[in-house]
């Protein structure tokens, strides 16, 4: 478990507040074993859950970026290696496909009084996960740069590209526009965002047949290409992690970046205080005259393993209730766009909440969505670099998806 200095300080503050130091979680006995991704908000949650540890209650946590590759195998054993898996929209699907998450209705009824209705993730009427934070890619821009060029904050992708062209001509910023265009997961995610913005449907309703090779797909690719033309030549090597330093170094003026990164980018105590003070967060732009933002909504939440004993499941649920208690959100409002009761959006969460209110669609939790995402990530790069047509790129994607979906048993 890797802790940054900042989160260590936050944790120290957390432990210092007396209400947390000797938490009474009401658990008699049991074992709580948490598997989770590793970023600040999740570190806070598992640290708060760990305060439930006592002579009879064991709490361990494995926070790792590899969680997605561990979870299915780790929860398939009986008893499961982890009793709690912290997941997001995308990573819940493999667990659901294998039936590895326990319906939580009875546990919510007994211990979940603090939960709000929108925190309950339901499949077929059963609660399968408890969400505690929201995330989305949304607009971030440098106020002073746009103002100096007399450009109004962009509301649409068309505005963004137009603004980028003006800024590029003025030559004040190296690459006015940056985006997560690295082939693979990031590039595919940008396509899904844009495609949703154009009102496209990813699949033919009620089937696993991909439907991206229509007009909305071509328009989405054309817009991504228009964006790329204003970017730095090495734009295809930029992912979320690579863009942090680019932004902090003042090398960009506009980006659609993850809300979970906003806290760090506007942190006045961060690496570049002037840039942080000048960075403004806003809702994700729309595209093609559409009414909903061209982005997808994500949530992070926790699930309890099917293969955990009832006692451990109850202990785990109670510990996680402590982990996502209103006090945790209240003590660390900047860490995430919490979905927890009593949380008021802070400046760092403005972008995510504006995006939610503007009616952006959630990222689909379909069992075959991951296969399409992978196929998109592998097949759009050649189009982006001008080596093949948009039609060809989408046709290649469909071929790759069909092959993968056949192998995974979703298509015959």
């Amino acid at each position: 478990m890797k802790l940054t200095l900042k989160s260590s300080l936050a944790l120290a503050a957390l432990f210092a507040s007396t209400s947390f130091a000797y938490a009474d979680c009401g658990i008699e006995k049991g074992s709580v074993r948490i598997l989770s991704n590793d970023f600040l908000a999740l570190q806070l949650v598992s640290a708060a859950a760990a305060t439930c540890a006592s002579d009879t209650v064991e709490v361990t946590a494995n926070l790792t970026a590899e969680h997605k590759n561990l979870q299915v195998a780790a929860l398939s054993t009986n008893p499961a290696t982890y009793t709690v898996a912290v997941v997001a929209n995308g990573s819940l699907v493999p667990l659901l496909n294998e039936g590895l998450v326990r319906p939580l209705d009875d546990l919510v009824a007994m211990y979940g009084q603090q939960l709000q209705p929108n925190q309950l993730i339901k499949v077929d009427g059963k609660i399968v996960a408890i969400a505690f934070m929201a995330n989305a890619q949304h607009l971030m821009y440098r106020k002073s740069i746009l103002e100096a060029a007399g450009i109004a904050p962009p509301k649409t992708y068309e505005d963004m590209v137009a603004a980028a062209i003006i800024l590029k001509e003025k030559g004040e910023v190296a690459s006015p526009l940056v985006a997560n265009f690295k082939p693979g997961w990031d590039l595919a995610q940008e396509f899904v965002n844009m495609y949703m913005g154009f009102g496209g449907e990813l699949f033919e309703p009620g089937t696993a047949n991909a439907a991206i090779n229509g007009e909305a797909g071509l328009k989405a690719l054309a817009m991504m290409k228009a964006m790329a033309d204003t970017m730095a030549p090495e734009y295809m090597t930029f992912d979320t992690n690579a863009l942090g330093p680019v932004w902090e170094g003042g090398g960009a003026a506009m980006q659609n970046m993850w809300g979970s990164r906003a806290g760090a980018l506007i942190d006045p105590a961060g690496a570049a205080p002037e840039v942080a003070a000048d960075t403004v967060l806003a809702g994700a732009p729309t595209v093609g005259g559409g009414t909903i933002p061209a982005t997808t909504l994500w949530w992070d939440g926790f699930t309890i393993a099917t293969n955990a004993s009832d006692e451990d499941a109850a202990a785990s649920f109670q510990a996680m209730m402590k982990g996502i208690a209103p006090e945790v959100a209240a003590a660390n409002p900047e860490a995430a766009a919490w979905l927890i009761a009593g949380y008021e959006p802070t400046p760092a969460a403005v972008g995510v909440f504006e995006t939610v209110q503007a009616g952006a669609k959630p990222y689909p939790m379909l069992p075959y969505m991951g296969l399409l995402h992978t196929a998109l990530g592998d097949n759009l790069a050649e189009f982006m670099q001008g080596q093949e047509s948009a039609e060809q790129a989408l046709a290649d994607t469909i071929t790759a998806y069909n092959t993968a979906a056949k192998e995974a048993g979703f298509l015959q």
Partner: protein
Amino acid sequence: MPHRTFFAFILPSLFVMLLFIALPILSVAYQSLFIEHDQALIEVETCDPFSCQKELRVDAAAMAALREEAPMGKFNGLGTYTNSSHLAFDEVSQIWANSPSILAFLSSLTNLPFYNAMAFTLAYTFIVTPLVIITGFFIALGVNAVPTLIKGPVIFFSLLPMIVTPLIGSLVLFWMIDSKGILGATLQWVFSDPQLTLKASPTLTWTVLMVYGVWHSAPFSFIVYYAGLQGVPKDTLESAMIDGATRWERVRYVVIPHLIPLTTFIALMQLMDNFRVLEPIVGFSAEANASSLSYLIYNDLRIAETPLFGSAAATSMLTIIGVVILLTPVLIRTWRDFNRKTH
């Protein structure tokens, strides 16, 4: 040595090889013949923090029963090998029929993921391997000539590129060739082109990857050749000097013939290593421009949300077949040498 003693002698290693090499390969080969069961899908209502909708879900209970019955999945024969993500027989014959020339055929062929990966893998293998052998040879000659006093440190520093883990080494170079990095910024200054970047075009990315490959592997051939140089007969060299041979003639007629068997060994190791190129592609974020067979396996198993074990297994088997084809000429040569020596 009696046969009995010989077998008793090699039995432990034979057992270990069977257990850790042959069995895993067999299991991968077996796995590559299977795909997942047809998924039982049911339509249910799904609610998240933002909205509710009707969506298809996998019927986990029905699937568990299916898997209980046939844990390997659905038998697919060689279907995975011939599908569009691998050898793509249908697509290839279609492209063949539609291509006016061989060149057009080859260029359309690289649009298929397997052949695209193959193109880079082969180019990498056949460009990097000879360069590694040549570079290593000249470094060895150079180091052999430096005074004994500084030889130790020189050898150590020459070995450094190989000691650095490939992924870390490629990341270090990746940051150095960044337009803000020392190499990238220098290149921009030298060519006075602020837009110049080694990361943008396929040609430049391939060049960078191959330069990295040579940089990383040259120490290996250097150290092997350096060891070989210590065994070059001194008296032959001295008599060559007396006969008035120049330094180059001594290298050409005494040193190189002596080192030829080592070249076979280095070529063998390097062909095998370079054919499995993976880390530089990840380290240099070169996914847009380069892909390799190992990268396809990595992609199937690690990048995908749903790992495709059958597909990865099929690519693994094709990689093994590729390595065998590559090594055959070298192995035949070694076999001939061996026979010559023993008879």
